[in-house]
Structures are given as structure tokens and as C-alpha cells.
């Protein structure tokens, strides 16, 4: 959508779930929005930032999710409505602040956090159900079932937040965040006139809204539970909880979030609407117990459909246990019974399969003969592994790493991290990354490994991080390394972008979320100030980059940093920076099977711009994909790949 702040109440527009969330933030009159990019949530903040000036909003990319949540918290303390956004891993980072924030309560301004989970790990390296966090952090939780509902829910979440004086957590998943569907626009608020003001302290020992220190806990923990009870009462009558179906269903299907439409479709496909009732919960924690208990009385069989953890399933079974003996005849189906799995993405077909089993129904996806033929014919379809883009500087860095580690010859290895370069554990990074965990963990793990000399450890340790990751969580690990005299070399692959999630600016780019210029935080200067030995190079100068790495690995004390600086090719394309070289393969020099390289360039180096000509078994350039970075010229042992400067 070109204008997220379109002032046309009642108009129906096609919005991605993340844009609908952003629109909800605008309609709620939010003053401050902060986040850290992470798919599937990455598009929410840019949508807000694109209209921030017009709508008088402060929208920022914070250095990490904890800081983003703190920024939003500060705004709430000063009386403004505030918003924070992140993916599931971000909830872990922000958790330590949130658990204390819920103890103190928020300020006069409502506060909402939108977290988008990624069932099936489509854009993540883990799979995690962040709803559990709502339970252990004591947050009211809502789950959106469509883009339009996400927008409406965000608005209502502010009312709940202000009513109970707690941050409210709205949860999306990939299919909500990234599905585009009809959204009806609502009213935008009038100009913001409220002055931001931090209230004065009234009473040191009173849990009043004017005081935001989380201790002493006996004063605050009891009121927190009273607030949650109040949220539960509000949730009992929420219009986001709905029931469709017969008064006394043979099977009560309890669902929430994106699974709602899967359930509706499954019941429709099976024409089972006379047998099955659907209770869709929009508010899932604290569970609206009276509402659920009322529905449990209408049936003998309950089927839970939710993605990942059996979160609602466990809450409802706990409620049923508390309501014995009147619930003693209930049979439960769901993740616990094995009818669904507590991992991977849900789908209409999975719900259909479970329902046919539970209700003993028949369903045919398509003509069985066709299915048989299709299964045979698709055998030829190859896997299509993801890759780094043509011209990606990470490919150059990983080639330098691979070469340097081989030449060094002491079984050195690389600790990987989160970003496009996560692909370093597989073919695109020549299988060089040997560890990968959370943001910044590469440097942290390397810092530990680099201090094991007394136990006989003698392998060189490299760690890698991107420029955005450096600011997010690597700085503490680097300082830790320097301080504890750990011996490792950190490679900062600085491509001037948060490329994996869509080119969001960060403190090193000199740009703000709204496009304004900003002070540039210089990574080299930060590393030097921390006391590390620092070198900067362009990874496309392969020989130099490799030599620097070899030299760094030879040092026996201290923490080193090599900044591999080269702009992301996608950013270069966006900024219309022309190709540097025109590439071609000289068919006379490419020796094919005679060479002994065993198709090094297309098999191992693997740039998408290179292809193997089946007829000649020689390499050639795919002109539709090559961006003329020239790197493959340095890789070909026969000198057959020719680069010519574009005039």
C-alpha cells in the first residue's frame, strides 16, 4: 500500500497483516513506536515510519528488542501511547525488561507489543511459541485471526492496557503477518495535543502509576495478579471471542489466531457444520474461563487446533480438571492425543485429516489416479537450495575464510551468527559456519572457546557477525573477549544493510527509520575503543582478505576484529550502482573434464550467475542473473572466466 495513513474511513484496501498492524497503531493514536527487524514482523515499523512525520509519531529502529521495549516503556511512563514490535526471538531478548515492567505497571499511556511467531521456521533458524512468554511474564495476550482483525485488536489492546495498567501482547504468526487481504480502514485520530510528562512521585511504597521501580516485590506482585484477574474479566465478553455452530455440537473445536480460518474451511470441506461447533478465542491469556466452561457443558468431545505449543489446550484442560466432576465425561483431542503435532505450521488439510479420524468421515483431496501420476512425474523435480545472491559479498568472505583456514592447517573453524550469512553452515558458505544460535552468540561462543588454552585447545577460532547484529548483541561479547583476554578473531561482515529482513537502517548506516540522516556509529572506532586489534578490508580483494585472516589467526593473545566491508549487492542494485565488470567464459580456456577442478565454479563456488552448459560440460555466464562482481575470475584455476571493466 502506498499510503498507510490514507484518511478514508470505511474504504476496503489490500493490506499485508504487518501493514494492517501498522494501520491499527495509527488509528489507536500511538505516539512512539520502536522495534528491531526480524521476519515475519519486519514490515510493521517501516510502514509506521513512512508516515511518522505526517502523523507526528516518533518511530525508531532500536539496537535490539529489549531497548525497543524500554523505549516504548519510557513513552508510556511519560503518558503517551506506545508500541513495540519484534519476532519471536525478540521476545526472549525483551523478556527481562517485560517481567519487571509488569511488576511496576505501565504509565498513563497504553502500551502494546506485537510479536510475530514463525511456525515452520520459514524465515527463522528456530521455531518457538512466544505465547508461553505471556504466561510466565504475566501479560494479557490476544491472537489475531486475520489482517483486519489484527488492526482492530491492536486498537482494543490499548483500551485493555490502559484499563488494567499492563502492557498487552498481540501475537501474530507468519501467515497473519504476510497474508495480504481485505482490510476496512477506520478513523484516524485528530492531532495529538497531549504533552509528554514524567509524573512526580507520590508515595515510595505504593504501587501507584507514578512510580516505576519493580521492588520491593511484595508490594507489586499481588496487584499484578489482581490486574490479570481484571483482564480475564474483560476478556470474558470480548467480541474477539466467537462461536459458530450448533447449540450442542457433537465436537467442540477450540481454536485461535491463524488456525481459525483453517478450521472454518475444514468444517466446510467436510460439510460437518451440523456436527462441529467452532469456538474461536481472540483472547488466550488469561483464559476467559467462564466463557470456555459454558461451552464445555455443551459437548462431550473437544478438539484443540493451534499452532506449535498446546497452549490453549493445556489451559482448557487445567480448567476442566478444576471443574470436575461435571467435566469428567469429556474426551480431548489435539496435540496431546497425537491428532495434531506441537510443531510446524498448521494447515486446513491437517485439520481435515484429524477431523476425518475423530468423526469417522470420508474426504478425497483429488482424483486418486491423478495423485498417483503426479507423484511419479514430480520425481524429476530437483531440490532448489537457497543461495546467496549473485554478487553477494558474503560469498567472497566465506571463500576467504575457507582458504585461510585451509592454509593455516590447524583445524580452525568459524562460529556463525544470524543474518544472510547464516547460510554459511551450508553450501552457500562452503559449510564454514560450525555453530549458530542467537543474535551475537557467534562472538560469545568464540570468546569462550578462545580461553581454553590451559585445557590443550589449540584450534584458531573465528566468529562472524553482520553490521546490524554487531550493534544488537555482539558488542558485549566483544568487550567480554577483550577483557577476559580471549584469543579469537571476529569478522564483521559490514554490507551496510540489515539485508536478511529487507534493508532496514541501523546505527552504522547514518540513516533513521524515517529516512532522515543520523550520526553514524563507526564500527571500527567502537572495536578499537574496546581494545581489539582491528583491520578493515574489502572481501572482493580475496588475496588481501585471506592474508589478513591468516595473520590474525597466528596471533596468540587478544581479540582481533576484521571488518569485511562491501555493500550488499541488492542495495547496490536499489541505488542503481552500475555493474563493475562484463563477464564471459572463454570456452577455449575452460578445460571442462580435462581441468581437474571438477566444475569448481558451478559445483562448489555456486554463484547463481554461473551455470554449467550441459552440452559442452563447460561453465558459462547466465546473463539474466550475473551482476558483474568479478569474483569468479579469481576462483577459476584455469583463468577461463574473463572480467572486463564496464566503460
Amino acid at each position, binding site marked *: 500500500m*502506498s499510503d498507510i495513513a490514507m484518511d478514508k474511513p470505511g474504504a*476496503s*484496501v*489490500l493490506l499485508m497483516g504487518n501493514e494492517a498492524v501498522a494501520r491499527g497503531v495509527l488509528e489507536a493514536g500511538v505516539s512512539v513506536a520502536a522495534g528491531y527487524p526480524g*521476519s*515475519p514482523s519486519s514490515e510493521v515499523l517501516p510502514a509506521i515510519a513512512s508516515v511518522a512525520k505526517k502523523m507526528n509519531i516518533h518511530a525508531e529502529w532500536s539496537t535490539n528488542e529489549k531497548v525497543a521495549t524500554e523505549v516504548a516503556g519510557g513513552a508510556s511512563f511519560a503518558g503517551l501511547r506506545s508500541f513495540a514490535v519484534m519476532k519471536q526471538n525478540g521476545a526472549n531478548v525483551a523478556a527481562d525488561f517485560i517481567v519487571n515492567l509488569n511488576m511496576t505497571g505501565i504509565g498513563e499511556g497504553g502500551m502494546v507489543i506485537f510479536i510475530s511467531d514463525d511456525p515452520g521456521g*520459514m*524465515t527463522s533458524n528456530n521455531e518457538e511459541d512466544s505465547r508461553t512468554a505471556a504466561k510466565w511474564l504475566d501479560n494479557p495476550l490476544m491472537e489475531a485471526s*486475520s489482517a483486519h482483525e489484527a488492526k482492530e485488536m491492536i486498537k482494543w489492546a490499548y483500551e485493555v492496557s490502559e484499563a488494567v495498567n499492563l502492557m498487552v501482547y498481540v501475537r501474530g504468526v507468519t*501467515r497473519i503477518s*504476510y*497474508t*495480504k*487481504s*481485505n482490510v476496512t480502514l477506520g478513523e484516524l485520530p485528530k492531532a495529538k495535543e497531549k504533552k509528554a510528562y514524567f509524573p512526580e512521585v507520590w508515595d515510595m511504597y505504593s504501587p501507584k502509576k507514578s512510580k516505576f521501580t519493580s521492588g520491593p516485590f511484595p508490594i507489586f506482585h499481588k496487584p499484578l495478579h489482581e490486574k490479570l484477574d481484571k483482564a480475564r474479566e474483560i476478556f470474558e465478553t470480548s467480541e474477539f471471542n466467537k462461536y459458530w455452530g450448533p447449540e450442542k455440537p457433537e465436537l467442540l473445536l477450540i481454536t485461535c489466531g*491463524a488456525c481459525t*480460518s*483453517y478450521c*472454518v*474451511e475444514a468444517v466446510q*470441506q467436510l460439510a460437518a457444520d451440523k456436527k462441529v461447533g467452532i469456538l474461536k478465542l481472540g483472547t488466550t491469556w488469561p483464559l476467559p474461563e467462564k466463557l470456555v466452561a459454558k461451552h464445555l457443558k455443551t459437548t462431550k468431545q473437544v478438539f484443540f487446533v493451534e499452532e506449535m505449543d498446546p497452549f490453549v489446550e493445556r489451559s482448557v484442560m487445567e480448567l476442566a480438571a478444576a471443574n470436575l466432576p461435571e467435566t469428567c465425561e469429556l474426551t480431548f483431542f489435539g496435540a496431546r492425543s497425537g491428532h495434531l503435532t506441537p510443531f510446524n505450521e498448521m*494447515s*486446513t*488439510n491437517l485439520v*481435515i485429516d484429524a477431523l476425518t479420524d475423530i468423526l469417522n468421515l470420508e474426504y478425497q*483431496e*483429488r482424483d486418486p489416479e*491423478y*495423485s498417483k*501420476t*503426479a*507423484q511419479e*512425474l*514430480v520425481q*524429476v*523435480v*530437483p*531440490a*532448489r*537450495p*537457497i*543461495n*546467496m*545472491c549473485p554478487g553477494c559479498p558474503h560469498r567472497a568472505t566465506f571463500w576467504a575464510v575457507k582458504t585461510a583456514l585451509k592454509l593455516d592447517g590447524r583445524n580452525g573453524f568459524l562460529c556463525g551468527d544470524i543474518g*544472510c550469512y547464516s547460510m554459511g553452515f551450508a*553450501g*552457500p558458505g562452503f559449510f564454514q559456519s560450525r555453530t549458530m544460535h542467537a543474535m551475537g552468540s557467534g562472538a560469545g561462543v568464540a570468546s569462550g572457546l578462545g580461553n581454553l588454552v590451559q585445557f590443550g585447545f589449540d584450534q584458531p577460532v573465528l566468529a562472524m557477525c553482520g553490521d546490524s547484529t554487531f550493534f544488537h548483541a555482539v558488542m558485549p561479547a566483544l568487550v567480554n573477549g577483550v577483557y577476559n583476554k580471549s584469543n579469537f578473531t571476529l569478522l564483521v561482515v559490514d554490507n551496510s544493510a540489515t539485508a*536478511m529482513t529487507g534493508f532496514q537502517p541501523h546505527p552504522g548506516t547514518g540513516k533513521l527509520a524515517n529516512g532522515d540522516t543520523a550520526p553514524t556509529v563507526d564500527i571500527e572506532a567502537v572495536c578499537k575503543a574496546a581494545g581489539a586489534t582491528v583491520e578493515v578490508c574489502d572481501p572482493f580483494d580475496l588475496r588481501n582478505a585471506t592474508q589478513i585472516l591468516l595473520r590474525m589467526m597466528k596471533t596468540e593473545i587478544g581479540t582481533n576484529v576484521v571488518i569485511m566491508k562491501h555493500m550488499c549487492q541488492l542495495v547496490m542494485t536499489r541505488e542503481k550502482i552500475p555493474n563493475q565488470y562484463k563477464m564471459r567464459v572463454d570456452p577455449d580456456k575452460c578445460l571442462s573434464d580435462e581441468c581437474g577442478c571438477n566444475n569448481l565454479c*558451478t*559445483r562448489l563456488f*555456486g*554463484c*547463481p550467475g*554461473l*551455470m*554449467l552448459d550441459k552440452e559442452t560440460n563447460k561453465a558459462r555466464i*547466465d*546473463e*539474466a*542473473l550475473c551482476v558483474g562482481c568479478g569474483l569468479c575470475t579469481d576462483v577459476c584455476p584455469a583463468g577461463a572466466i574473463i572480467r572486463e571493466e564496464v566503460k
Partner: protein
Amino acid sequence: MAIQALTKEPFNMVIAGVGGQGNVLLSAFVGNALLNKGYMISVADTFGVSQRGGSVASHIKISKDTLYSSVTLNGQADVLLGMEPVETLRVLGEFGNPEVITIVNPRPVYPTGGVSYPDLEKVKEAIEQLSAKTSYVNATEVALSMGNPILANIILLGALVGANLLPINKDDMMPILEERFPGKILETNIQAFEKGMAMIAEA
């Protein structure tokens, strides 16, 4: 003239391709045109790997009055727009059925990392065998002759609209192209769109 209404409720369309080919743009164009005609639309795109050479499929579920989930049920695609042959076959394996209409760009995008591509003629035969009707549109070839391979997606959009399978026509598409392509590039994109319409008429 475009058809006046959906031929099935809901109507399922899948766009199959490889990251970087422009699925996401195409699905948004089709979705917006249908929304402007009053339909309820649900579009699912694959992101994350979308610019990194992996398989991507966009699903568009269209209804006259109901908002459904975005992903097509197994074996229920009504129209398949294939931007790449093996990706088209991959989607047919999961979502195809004896009635599916397939429009396909026959130009392969080769996988990297030493993965070999199957015999193209065999892939085409398989696509034809699994489709009620198969139309080939040499979109990449024509786009390259126009000077930019990325135009292939707009050529395919023209082919889709020209195939008269959805209740949208060229006039419905024009405002959307105008909004997305300001200035000089509009003319090139309209040319590409019209070429696609002409190509499907002859396919």
C-alpha cells in the same frame, strides 16, 4: 472481454517461481485488481528466501463474499501461473488436479550448488499431462529482447489477464500499473503487459 464472475467458489490461483522473479509483485497486482472489483482476497507469499534463489509460490484465494485462509488446499488449484518449468511441476504435484489450467514460462532457472536440472522436454510433458490445458508464454525470452529480464513477470501478468480466467481485464489492471510504475518505466511495462496478452492469444 473478461469473464463476469468467478467460475468456482472459492477460486484458487497459484503463482510458482524462483526467488527474485517477482512473484510478490504479481500476486499484489492480481489481488488489488480483484479487490477493486469487490472480491474478498487472501494472498500468501513466501518471504525470507524470496530473493535468494529458493522455490517460491504465491497463493491467491478469491471469494465473492468470504475471507478464507490464503493457502490453497492440497489438489485444489484452479489456475497455475508458472514463472519457471520445474517450479510449475513442483506445484502441480501438490496442488494440481485434472481441471487445472496452466500458463507457463518455459525458460528454466537453474539451481545452484551442483544440483542438476531435469530434461526440459520431460518437464514440459509432465506439466501437460497434469494440466487440463497448458499454454506456453516465452516471457523471459521476450523480456530479454526488450532489454530487461525482470519484465517477464509483467508479460506473464498480461498473459494471465488475456487468458480470460479471472474476472479482470486490461482496464482493471491499468490503474495499478500506473500507480506502481511512475514516469518513463510505465510505458515499457504497458508494452510488456500487451505483449503478454498478444502471446497468450496465440499460444
